[in-house]
Each structure stands twice: as C-alpha cells, then as structure tokens.
C-alpha cells in the first residue's frame, strides 16, 4: 500500500489531460506562431484553451497570460506592479507573513531595490485580517498581494473582502491562488481580483505551466524579454501540449468541484479528528476556513523530517513544510508566523488529500502517525525533558 497524501506538493496528472497532451504532441505539432496550417491549427487549440481557462476564472481570454508556472506568474505580477508603481512614485507593497517564497523572495529583492514592504501578521488562525490591509494602505502603495490559500496550513484568506478594499482604495490587488484554483470556487470579476497566479500541476494538470490573469486596464510589464508571444508580454515558444493539458485538467476539476470539496473535506475532518487525539498535538490553521484537502499538525517533542521519512516507510507520502524548502534547515516561516516556537515548528506534518484518497486510508494514516510519533518521542531527549517536567509543554 502506498497512500499519496502530498497533493499540495504536486498532484497526479488527470488521464484526460494527459491524453490531450499526447494528442497535441503528435497531431498538433506546429508552432502556434507559425502561419502555415500546422501552426494555425496549433493556434486554434491554444485559443480554445485560453477561452476555456478564462471562462472558469470568470475572465476574458485576453486577460490570460501563459507562464511556466506559479512561481513565474507570482514574480511577473509583483515586478510588473512594482515597475508601474515606481513610475508613479509608489514604492510600497503590502503582503502577508505567510506567503509562498515565490512571493516573499521577490518582495525581498524589491526591498533591496528600495521598495518598502509591509508584511501583515496573521492571527493564530493563520488568516489575514482585512482591516489590517485597509490600515496598511498608504498613498504610495503600489500593490497588495495576499495568497488565496496557504500552501502549508491551507487557510483560506478573505480575498473578496481584501480585494474590495483595494478596489475602493484604487490599489492593484494580486493573489497567489496556486493552491486554491480548482479546489474552491473563484471568480476574478466578481471578487475584484486584478491579478491572479495559478499553476496547473496543483489541480492534476501538467508541470511547468501556469497562468497569470491580468485584468484589462491593469498594466503588465515583462519579466522575460524576447519574441511576440502572449502579446509580447511573455515571450518563448508556446508550450501548447501543456497549455491544452492545463485547460483540460481545469475543466475536468471544476466540472465536479462541489462534490469533490465535500468528499475531500470529510476525509480531512476524519484525519483532523483522529490526529487531534494524539497528546500534545495541535492542528495548525483554522479548522474550517481551510482547503478541503489540507491537514497540518505539530507534534511536540519530535522533528518533522524523521516523522515523514518513517511515515513513508509505512507507505504514507506526506510532507513537513513545503516541498520547495526541503533544502533548508529553518523551520517553516508560516508556522512561526502563527506564533509557534521554533522547536515546535520543527515538528510539523502536512497531509494534503485528493479525491483519490479513501476513508480507509485516513484510518490507516491516523494509526501510522500515532505509532511513528510514539516511537520518535520515545527516542527524543526533548520529549524526555517535557515528560520529566524539566521543560514545559507548549501545546
């Protein structure tokens, strides 16, 4: 048995999307920018994909820019708003302490270039308060960028409220919706979103492809320079198989999103209930305002990596923090932002579910986690100190 519970890192490709990709690769092999019929056939497929994606998001197809993924979309959105802001003397950006590194590291770079960055704190529930956004907005605020759903603790941010404030204050609002698209309903028009990033492989689409949605009227500057593709805003030969695969995966996933949400969140709640019974364990992030598939716990006295390696031994693929920070030794900035001390933040476990998971798997995971946590606590000098009362329990 191997239970894949790391869907926030990446998902398995939808077979329909894979078929579409294969069909593109073999039958629609032209370059969409070529004028001959092989190229124009490709251009048609691309246009259809653009329209399909626009429709799902509630956007116009002219507002869809294909990128190489969520990271690039985040970078371009932020640089673009910063470049536009700079022209108008606005060099202040508002974001949150729990953003993905694609946002945080881009902001850090801008900070070095003279921008002022306000990172809003979140509450213990892992949620940004719209009122904080309102208060942080200044005359020189060029951009507010707040993620739609957090990649570690899964908390859903009050995007509509925040976006409404930004619209009212005439500040560009971007949301990194990489973890949210395909999992919860989103409508950029109704929700007043100016820019939105998504990445296909988070909803059973292909890797290496994403979208930056940019509302008509919001200026878009290049991150990458080159040819005339994507109306000149994102050059490079268009990745048609991936674009068409992304559109297929997105259509597929939204076609039954409500049912999936219900199923997956009930699995999630089984896990949360079961894991909560482990002593000195704590659910991170609000219990309800979170992604249907996200479960994130801290277990006192143990360390996350050894926890997940032993879970893997038992056939459970999970994660501690986010996949893309696995080269780092530092505990998750998201858990620290919740107010957890370093040593507790080290002991985190993220389980991220998909429709493919079953109830039986949840019970198996609960037992496996319990066993591994007990085993690791048994060999942990930290746990020993806690048990002996030499240290005080935090959770």
């Amino acid at each position: 048995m191997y239970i894949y519970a790391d869907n926030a890192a990446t998902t398995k490709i939808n077979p329909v999307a894979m078929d579409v990709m294969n069909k593109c690769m073999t039958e629609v092999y032209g370059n969409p920018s070529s004028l001959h019929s092989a190229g124009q056939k490709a251009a048609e497929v691309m246009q259809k994909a653009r329209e399909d994606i626009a429709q799902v998001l509630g956007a116009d197809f002219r507002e869809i820019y294909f990128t190489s993924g969520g990271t690039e979309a985040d970078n371009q959105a932020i640089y673009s708003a910063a470049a536009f802001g700079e022209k108008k003397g606005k060099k202040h950006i508002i974001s949150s302490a729990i953003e993905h590194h694609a946002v945080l590291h881009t902001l850090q770079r801008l900070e070095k270039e003279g921008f002022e960055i306000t990172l809003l704190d979140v509450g213990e529930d892992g949620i940004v308060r719209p009122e904080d956004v309102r208060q942080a907005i200044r005359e020189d605020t060029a951009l507010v960028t707040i993620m739609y759903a957090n990649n570690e603790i899964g908390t859903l941010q009050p995007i509509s409220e925040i976006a409404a404030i930004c619209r009212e204050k005439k500040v560009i609002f971007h949301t990194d919706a990489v973890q949210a698209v395909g999992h919860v309903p989103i409508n950029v028009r109704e929700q007043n979103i100016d820019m939105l990033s998504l990445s296909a492989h988070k909803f059973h689409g292909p890797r290496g492809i994403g979208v930056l949605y940019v509302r008509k009227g919001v200026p878009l500057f290049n991150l990458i320079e080159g040819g005339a593709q994507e109306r000149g805003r994102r050059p490079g030969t268009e990745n048609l198989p991936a674009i068409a695969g992304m559109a297929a995966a997105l259509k597929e996933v939204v076609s039954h999103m409500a049912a999936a949400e219900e199923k997956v969140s009930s699995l999630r709640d089984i896990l949360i209930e079961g894991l909560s019974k482990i002593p000195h364990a704590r659910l991170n992030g609000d219990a309800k305002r979170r992604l249907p598939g996200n479960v994130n716990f801290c277990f006192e006295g143990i360390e996350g990596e050894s926890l997940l390696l032993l879970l893997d031994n038992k056939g459970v693929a999970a994660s501690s923090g986010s996949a893309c920070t696995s080269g780092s030794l530092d505990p998750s900035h998201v858990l620290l932002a919740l107010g957890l001390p370093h040593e507790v933040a080290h002991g985190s476990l993220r389980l991220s579910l998909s429709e493919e998971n079953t109830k039986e798997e949840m019970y198996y995971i609960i037992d496996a986690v319990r066993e591994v946590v007990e085993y690791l606590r048994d060999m942990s000098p930290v746990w020993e100190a806690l048990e002996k009362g030499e240290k005080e329990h935090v959770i």
Partner: protein
Amino acid sequence: MLYSEKVMDHFQHPRNLGKMENADGVGEVGNAKCGDIMKMYIKVDDGIITDVKFNTFGCGSAIATSSMATEMIKGKSVEDALELSNQAVVEALDGLPTHKIHCSVLAEEAVKAAVKDYYDRNNISYDAALFAEGECPHCHE
C-alpha cells in the same frame, strides 16, 4: 536519493538506541530551536567504552549519525573515542547532503560531551581545549 543507503539503514534501524541507567558519562548537545538534540550515554570499564546508547531529536541524518557514532566508539578506549571526527562519521555513512553535515558535527560533539562528563565525574584531568565549545554553526547564523 537525498540519503545514501547506509544513512537510511541507520535511520530506520538505529543501533544502540535507548537510554542508559547508571551511565558513566552522559552528553547532550544541540538545541531544539535549531532542530537537533543528541544525548549520548556511555558505560566505561577500564577506560574502554563497553556500552553506549543514544537518544536523538532531529532529522533523518541526525538519527543516522548518532547511530553510526555509537557503533564507531563502542569497544574503543575513551581516548580513541575522542579522536572520532565528524568526517569519519560522514564517510562511514557514505556521505551526507551538504546542508546536513552539521548533524555529523553534533554527533562528534555528543561523543565528546559524554567523555567529558565521564572525566568530570571521575576527576580525570584533561586538556580543556579538547572540549572547546564548537556548536553547530547553523544555530549561530
């Protein structure tokens, strides 16, 4: 693979895992903030380490290096144990990822701390320079 087979073997089947009643020396190094704590217990007979146990809070390589270090000093004299270098532990494990080398440093220090404790308890004199505080550099970044 992130870890060599040797590392995974020692992580999954740690040698000398456990606590020790009536140890002759106990050393604890690292800190939880940094993510690794190792505690090493030694039993010494006639200057020879006849038994060793460890407890570790930490990542896979922290557990594996602890385990490997205990194997490498068991049956050795305390003086020989003091010679154990983190490089030797890393080599014995067929390498560690760069960002995990600090774990092997901790293992070396845990051994030294246990020996120092043994010396102290038995009023054996030693060169203090041998035990100069050399903590995981990561924690001081």
